[in-house]
């Protein structure tokens, strides 16, 4: 039997600067602030973090292997379960990839429905982030307000797709069924409520002295380092790099919509937090325009019941709430893909965690992890 390589042991400094010993503590996988099942080993010198090892894979379901055995309509259900806070955005990337490979034209109405639902899902996802980020720091109230508003979005999703989270609503070449008749009215009244809700939380939290003290200047990433690590989404834009797939490579109908991409300056946790508040407001503007531009029409192009894309490779990506979510699809011309690689933004955003943690207090560990806004379903796949 071949000899197994020795397990790596965490490095420990026996004698640190104070003549003491580093203490290794275990955080997670059942820790409430890890937003799922994420485990960190932290080396502490009194209260300072001197080293960190992260462990992922507790939620590994072998999704990418599963994709290879399922037909495309079944894969949509699996994509719902990758980033389980922004399900519509995930579905969109998959159907975009398959449509690109089959060179399908999607009807305008379907595109608008997709954009509206994706942007509402972005608001829902950012509301979860704002609520849980405050919760990580011990502020309970904002999470109640954000979850109250998110509930209204989910009720609209339920009226549209029949499910609150696992929708299975987008189809290759369109959407499953047309939206309900009073959809524009419902969305418009919802947007008003969301605007008020976001303002309320913003007023409650963003500029509070304790909140700013705990987030300003914590875990600073400069733009170049952020690009080196491959960060995307709000984590990258907080560092001052203007990169948004919706603007740089417009997909769907984003080129017909007018919106701003907020950019941060400091690249610290407060910027990463506040950028998401601003992005949620921009999403409201996008949805307003899309609702106005949406016209009646078909919602589905003619596609065979079992989609069979031709032989070839395709790369599709879109701006998810967490960053640049991409799919690399290799098809052999069959009912299932030969290979379907997912580029999860959460996974890439998690990578600089060790560098960010070192030198900060242990109480800031949850704040730093929370500001990266990871979803473990997507990290582990």
């Amino acid at each position, binding site marked *: 039997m071949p000899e197994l390589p020795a397990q790596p042991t965490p490095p420990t400094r026996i004698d640190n600067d104070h003549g003491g010993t580093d203490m290794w503590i275990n955080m997670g996988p059942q820790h409430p602030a890890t937003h799922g099942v994420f485990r960190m080993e932290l080396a502490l010198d009194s209260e300072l973090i001197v080293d960190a090892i992260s462990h992922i894979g507790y939620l590994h379901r072998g999704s990418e292997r599963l994709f290879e055995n*399922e*037909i495309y*309509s*079944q894969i949509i*259900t*699996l994509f719902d379960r990758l980033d389980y806070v922004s399900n519509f955005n995930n579905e969109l990337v998959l159907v975009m990839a398959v449509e690109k490979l089959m060179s399908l034209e999607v009807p305008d109405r379907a595109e608008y429905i997709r954009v509206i639902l994706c942007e509402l899902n972005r608001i829902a996802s950012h509301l979860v982030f704002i609520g849980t980020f405050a919760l990580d720091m011990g502020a309970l109230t904002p999470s109640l307000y954000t979850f*109250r508003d998110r*509930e209204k979005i989910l*009720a609209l999703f*339920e*009226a*549209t*797709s*029949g*499910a609150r989270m*696992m929708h*299975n609503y987008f189809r290759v070449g369109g959407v*499953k069924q047309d939206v*309900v008749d009073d959809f524009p009215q419902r969305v418009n009244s919802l947007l008003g409520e969301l605007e008020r809700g976001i303002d309320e939380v913003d007023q409650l939290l963003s500029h509070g002295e304790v909140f700013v003290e705990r987030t300003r200047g914590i875990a600073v990433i400069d733009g170049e380092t952020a690009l080196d690590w491959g960060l995307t989404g709000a984590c990258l834009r907080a560092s001052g790099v203007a990169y948004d797939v919706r603007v740089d490579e417009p997909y769907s109908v984003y080129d017909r919509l007018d919106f701003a991409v907020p950019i941060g300056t400091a690249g610290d946790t407060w910027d990463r937090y506040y950028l998401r508040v601003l992005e949620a407001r921009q999403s409201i503007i996008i949805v307003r325009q899309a609702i106005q531009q949406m016209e009646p029409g078909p919602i589905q192009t003619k596609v065979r*019941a079992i989609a069979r894309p031709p032989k070839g490779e395709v790369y599709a990506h879109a701006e998810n709430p967490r960053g640049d979510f991409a799919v690399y699809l290799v098809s052999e011309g069959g009912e299932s893909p030969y290979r379907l690689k997912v580029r999860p933004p959460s996974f890439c955003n998690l990578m600089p965690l060790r560098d960010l943690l070192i030198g900060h207090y242990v109480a800031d560990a949850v704040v730093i992890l929370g500001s990266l806004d990871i979803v473990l379903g997507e990290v582990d796949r």
Partner: protein
Amino acid sequence: MLNSVKALRVSLSTMMRRKVTAEYPKEHLPLQDRFMGFPALTWDEARDEPFCTGCMVCIRYCPTQCMSAQMTDNTKFADGDSHRKKIVETFEINLGRCILCGICVDVCNFDAIEMSFEHERSERLRDANRVDLPTLLDMGKAYQEESGWKQSKPNAPSPKEKEVIAAAKAAEEAPELKPEAHPASGSPDPPEDAPEDAPEGTDADNRAKKEGETP
């Protein structure tokens, strides 16, 4: 001082808000019309049998393989009461495995399976959510009643109805044409002047179709 006044104002303005939560087991939030609960099998009132023929198409497309079914010969077809040659004999869904994706509903050709409003199925035993055909049909009946469900296309005529139609046609042609050319069990081809004349036979045909439409 000013801050306390501000705080008091916020407290007073939020105090009178309506509550948004519901104490779950006691209160239930309303379900939307399109809500997708667990799948259930629908019941054909007109024929007094399930719509499902056990064709297994939903089972082949199910992403989690949570269903199984068996098909059998329909005795009602032999008796001439139903147009379904085959009918479902056993059907089992492991609702604990079902992911509520609705693919089975999309692929079904017979309106036989629908996502019901049923969603509260916490049980003590691991196998308690393996539901069989009678339970699925009960769930389906409850769903049909609650939602005012309609089948998408009317039933095809059963052998007995076909006979009635053919007889009606024969009777209608009898005074004008040679009656011996169209016996009672005669050809299904309708004569061109049938809709204009609209005799009693066609009425019976219409009634049968209407019953099929609104079970």
